[in-house]
């Protein structure tokens, strides 16, 4: 159930006795603007390190230990055209801990989010400087994971709008340029103007949670609106090769797909991409990895918020051209309908099975509440999903796959081959 606490601030409560935990998530949502990402990300580091009540990292960690080892973190992400900052607190259920942890958890969040450690009307200078330096180091180290590096490289190549080109956590240059005053301004703006969605899941009483959520003290606001869904016009294929020191090359491809978020072809899109490269039974996995032995991994994922399909592979640097051809062949097979009804049924069964199991995870259930709040056409029950997938015909899969247009090819390869 979704309750308006005040204008622009909502509480979503999911009562369930199934889990040993209670989850609280506080989402701050604002129109995605690339120049804000670095500040919003640094804000998460600063807020989760210290606050007035727990002025050192050790004091804050000790409080989490007192809360029976509660898991706390603040992260960022994008929901299409929205940028999201989320504080999450996972607590042992009150009944299991035999202690009022939910109330204590809200008190903790109130301190961390609402009463930061300050100095002269800004964030504590030592905390600001150290977290800024650490975050820069962390972003610089992301390239140590070559799969991540290639995926981010592909998105930077594919998208034209900086809000989508730049990852949700911003850039090193953006971080380095930030001042304490600017960060403070970003914080005040986020607290006062962002759309806020609070999600609480567990063995809880909605009325009690409503009262607790009210104690977070968010003021009424009229949040700026932005479309959740992104659609970029198609253009000529962009190609980029980056040479680094690797044994295994990463070949990533980006496609545009005509599938609207929770629109008429949404389920057909899910099935088509699952068949193309979403599972171990997919054409990419069975033909490129298993039969041709040309990749250690080969998969496709649909980003329904952005009309975007990403193919990721890890290959021998010498095989880039061959694998590009193999990937194209698999997509053509989906488009031509060169797959059996039996495989299609199996792929659909796999999607349904995975979806039903997802309802066993607090994280998934809590996310459904967020999606439901953000996208009016979202259906959060399993029955709707199952009916949607069941109705997908072979022709629909072919039709949707035929809308896919290759837009970007990103190759991360070794120095010798280039």
């Amino acid at each position, binding site marked *: 159930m979704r309750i308006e606490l005040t204008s622009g601030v909502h509480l979503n409560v999911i009562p369930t006795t199934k889990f040993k935990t209670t989850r609280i998530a506080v989402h701050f949502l604002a129109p995605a603007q690339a120049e804000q990402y670095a500040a919003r990300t640094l804000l998460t580091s600063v807020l989760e390190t210290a606050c007035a009540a727990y002025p050192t*990292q*050790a004091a804050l960690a000790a409080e989490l230990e007192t809360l029976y080892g509660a898991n706390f973190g603040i992260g960022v992400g994008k929901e299409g055209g929205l940028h999201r900052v989320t504080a999450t607190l996972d607590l042992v259920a009150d009944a299991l801990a035999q202690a009022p942890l939910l109330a204590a958890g809200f008190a903790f969040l109130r301190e961390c989010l609402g009463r930061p450690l300050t100095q002269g009307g800004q964030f504590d200078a*030592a905390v600001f400087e*150290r977290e800024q330096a650490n975050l820069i*180091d962390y972003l610089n180290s992301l390239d140590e994971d070559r799969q991540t590096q290639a995926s981010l490289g592909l998105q930077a190549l594919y998208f034209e709008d900086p809000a989508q080109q730049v990852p949700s956590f911003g850039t090193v240059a953006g971080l380095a340029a930030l001042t304490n005053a600017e960060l403070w301004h970003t914080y005040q703006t986020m607290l006062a103007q962002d759309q806020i969605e609070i999600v609480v899941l567990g063995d809880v009483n909605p009325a009690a949670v409503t009262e607790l959520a009210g104690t977070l003290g968010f003021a009424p606001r009229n949040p700026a609106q932005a479309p959740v869904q992104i659609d970029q016009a198609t253009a000529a294929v962009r190609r980029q090769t980056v040479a680094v020191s690797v044994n295994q090359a990463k070949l990533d491809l980006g496609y545009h797909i005509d599938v609207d978020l929770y629109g008429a072809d949404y389920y057909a899109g899910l099935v088509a991409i699952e068949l193309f490269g979403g599972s171990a039974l997919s054409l990419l996995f069975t033909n490129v990895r*298993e039969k041709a032995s040309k990749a250690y991994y080969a998969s496709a994922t649909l980003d329904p918020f952005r009309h975007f399909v990403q193919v990721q592979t*890890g290959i021998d640097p010498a095989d880039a051209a061959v694998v590009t051809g193999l990937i194209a062949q698999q997509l053509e097979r989906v488009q031509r309908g060169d797959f059996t009804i039996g495989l299609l049924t199996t792929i659909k069964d796999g999607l349904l099975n*995975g979806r039903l199991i997802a309802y066993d995870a607090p994280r998934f259930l809590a996310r459904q509440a967020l999606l439901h709040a953000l996208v009016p056409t979202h259906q959060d029950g399993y029955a709707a999903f199952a009916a949607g997938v069941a109705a997908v015909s072979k022709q629909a899969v072919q039709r949707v796959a035929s809308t896919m247009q290759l837009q970007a090819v990103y190759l991360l390869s070794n120095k010798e081959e280039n």
Partner: protein
Amino acid sequence: MAQTYPEVGETLHDVTLPNGLRVLIVPKPDYHETYALFAVNYGGIDVRYVPAGETEMVEDPAGIAHFLEHKLFEKADHDAFDLFGATGASSNAFTGANTTAYLFSTSRAVAENLTTLLDFVQDPYFTDKTVAKEKGIIGQEIQMYQDTPGWRLYYGLLGNLYPTHPVAQDVTGTLASIAEITPAALHRAYRTFYQPSNMTLTVVGNVDPQKTLDLIAANQAAKTFAPATPITRGVAPDYDVATILPYRSLSLPVARPKAAVAIKGQRPVKDDQAGTRFQVAVRLLLEMLFGDSGALYQDWYDQGLIDDSFDCDYQAGATYNFLTFAGDTEDPQALSDALVAVIAKGADQVLDPARFARLKQAGLGKYYQGMNALDSMANQLSTQSFTAVNAFELAGVMRDVTLDDLHQAAGQLFDLDAVTVCHVFPEVGA
């Protein structure tokens, strides 16, 4: 056979079948999922053993347990992946230093998938052709890990501690070692280790325990197995500090240097109650000394010596045990020096009783949180099944551990003679 654990709110059905297979079942009627794990007490380090029915010790190429895991899915006319997939289930497998496990997760057709799991693992099929092809796929996997600096650091560190013990070798093996694997070697390892009496089947989820047990028992009764034979493992215990290489430096494509320190255990840690308690004590000791609510962490973090990447861990197997510490840092020498200075104090560590009580409570909370996910519960049950303490008894062990246990653990492990250091520096021009 059925035991209820009120503290964790679970009931465990624990039965050993006539052929020696141990079956663990935890019903979770609220859940859609059923997760099953078929595990063998055989992993990456088991490269020396006396084959079943023979008398002479043999040596296998590194990576054979992992190779066997990959190959078991493939049959003459089908792949077991597809059988699971045909019902909508997902399946997977993994190999660790000491165990290999095959699993499926499903919300439907549990009986059919259980039968598939039992049957494909118990029906090996290896040919020259399929073995040759697998070398290509695993070769790619090995190369991918080689590109991961953190992985290179970890195995560099273990290589220092254990120049000859196979625990220092990643379970995937090397391109050279997997080249030597043959169908005959796979069959020999299979018949030695994949005996039902050396295996556990764990089923957690939306199942009727008795019906599930009946199905498994009938499946096993219908098959013929060679008589159970004791397994003679030949990998020698390594607790020798004399062989440790004290230092290694690596030049890798990293943005920031890394430092790591490891300590070699000098005494065996058994898989009994005392050994389990010791391991719990060591993990609490690490949290007490190096955890983020401690003075040391705060001090090092404030100095810029460590950041969020700092981590420590303890691993114990039948023939080895070791502690590792690692993190990204501007000054790897300063970080390893700081770690060594703590180790140099041996048992003489300042451990605050109030903080200890809090950390135990937090540890219990994390333990409960881990029991939310069926895969995590099944993995814990399966791992513990090869020891004397089951996963639901761990909470009690955690409660019983005392500060004295921690001091003793520090005294036993913290020895400068048992330490090695590894540094990673950015490649010049990278």
